[in-house]
């Protein structure tokens, strides 16, 4: 059995009176793709944001390799190896795609406080960055400024940046949103490959992709854990169909 890498115990996140996460318990295992689905506003993004340290948890514990990391600062999560992509594209628009990935890679490699070493001199960083671009299929766009690539390509870049931080856990928030069919396919095959090495947490509304990729699925509703199970069980679970999927295919 794969070992649990990241887990949340009684995790809560309140926005004023709103319980975006309510006593959530969940475990993520190594070399597995674990997807989280649920209606809009269920708290999926909030969960990812809390797991990666962007929001401080209201209460509860986050365990990473068994040790609590809840108290860490936002930027320290990434250093531990928890990388995340954003639901709303969040990249450095004025930099080239390659440079975007270099920024991500440099954090890992270090030397960021070196005032005098020319940034382009660091081969290792550039290599990691190129590799990440290549993985998501953006090699051709390496030297294009990020604003100038299309929306779908920006989504790909978003993932490449996470990869460039050499994470152990990948938290992906709707990576496929806004992507065309072909791009989605690229990402799907990429994720298939990545889940051999990483622990991946995927939030996504594209059910085809989710069903195809997931080893485990969790359904969340109103900040609460509804069910965690395999794809097939979930698909046929009447509760889930009620709360999230609806009865049949996307026709009326």
């Amino acid at each position, binding site marked *: 059995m794969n070992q649990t890498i990241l887990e949340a115990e009684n995790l809560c996140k309140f926005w004023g009176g709103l319980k975006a996460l309510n006593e959530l318990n969940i475990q993520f295992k190594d070399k597995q793709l674990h997807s989280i689905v649920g209606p809009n506003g269920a708290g999926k993004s909030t969960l990812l944001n809390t797991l990666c340290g*962007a929001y401080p948890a209201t209460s509860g514990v986050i365990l990473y390799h068994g040790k609590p990391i809840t108290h860490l600062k*936002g930027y320290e999560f990434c250093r531990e190896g928890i990388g995340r992509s954003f639901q709303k594209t969040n*990249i450095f628009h*004025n930099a080239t795609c390659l440079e975007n990935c270099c920024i991500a890679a440099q*954090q*890992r490699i270090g030397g960021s406080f070196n*005032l005098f070493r020319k940034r382009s001199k660091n081969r290792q960083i550039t290599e990691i960055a190129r590799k990440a671009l290549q993985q998501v299929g953006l090699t051709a766009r390496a030297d294009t400024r990020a604003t100038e690539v299309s929306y779908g390509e920006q989504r790909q870049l978003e993932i490449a940046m996470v990869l460039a931080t050499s994470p152990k856990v990948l938290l992906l928030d709707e990576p496929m949103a806004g992507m065309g069919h072909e791009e989605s396919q690229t990402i799907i095959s990429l994720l298939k490959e990545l889940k051999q090495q990483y622990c991946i947490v995927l939030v996504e509304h594209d059910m085809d992709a989710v069903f195809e990729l997931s080893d485990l699925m969790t359904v969340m509703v109103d900040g609460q854990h509804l069910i965690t199970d395999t794809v097939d069980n979930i698909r046929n679970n009447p509760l889930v169909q009620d709360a999230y999927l609806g009865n049949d295919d996307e026709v009326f």
Partner: protein
Amino acid sequence: MSIFSSKSEKIFIYLFFAIGLFIPLFLEGNTFYINKFSTIIILSIFVMSLDYLVGRTGLITLGHAMFYGLGGYIFTILAPEYEAVNFWVYTFYVMLISGFIALIVGLIVLRTSGIYMIMITLALAQMTFYFFADSVEYGGLDGLFVYIKPETSIFGLSFLDLDNETHFYYLCLLSLFNCFVFFKVIMNSSFGRVIDALKENPDRAIALGYNIFHFRLIAYVLSSSLAAYAGYLFALQFGFVNPSMMSWDISATALVMALLGGLGSVFGAIIGSFMYEGLHYYIEHLTEYWMFFMGVLIIALVLTLKHGIAGFLNALGGKRS
């Protein structure tokens, strides 16, 4: 490999320093012009440090003159009244102490951002202003005098006589050059990469694992101590410091110069300072209502140039940074 980010920048810098080197030969004896150039060069250093902070780091301050003034005051207060101290040693002291102050100030002001940071820097600068303006021992609003200028020997060898305007001019020019190279080098460094990133999208930089506070703090300290260095040179040039060096309109004027030059371009700071001061000097001699024409000119420039004069030159040169 070149440190320049555009052809125009390269041409400008070569031309500027070439002319700068030889200009005293043509001004033989006219100490006023030499002095005037030194003053503007000192100002350029100050504006450059601000330009880096605002344009590169994205940290906008209206209290930068605080360090300009502190640079002067630190020296004036520290140096014994009737004894020539060593210039280099005191350069070190001034930058070290102002750097330390900047560290403390930075720890406070960098907790805020945007307009709030503008205001809190302004508040601290005004408080420092009033501290010196109300103080009895530091000369109050009338300021302090520097009675004896430092000597500049290194290991007993002395090349520069600070009482000599031309020598002082070269010291300023050299300082500006070093300052320019320094900023260009850190801009192109690994550190500069992070700075660029966190200016554009700080949230993403955090998500990538950077403690952006540390980077901002370093940038703030560097920029502030260079501003202090400029203030130190000012004090040396005129032998005089005054709280008005710290007043907010000096910060604002410097910001205007940086903007005119083209924010974030570093070499634009030189252009901005020379242009503003040049125009000011020229128009002031034409009319008592110089402010009117200065205002019209500034407005015309904002409306026609998008990224200041440096941006205009870069566009002419046809290469983007």
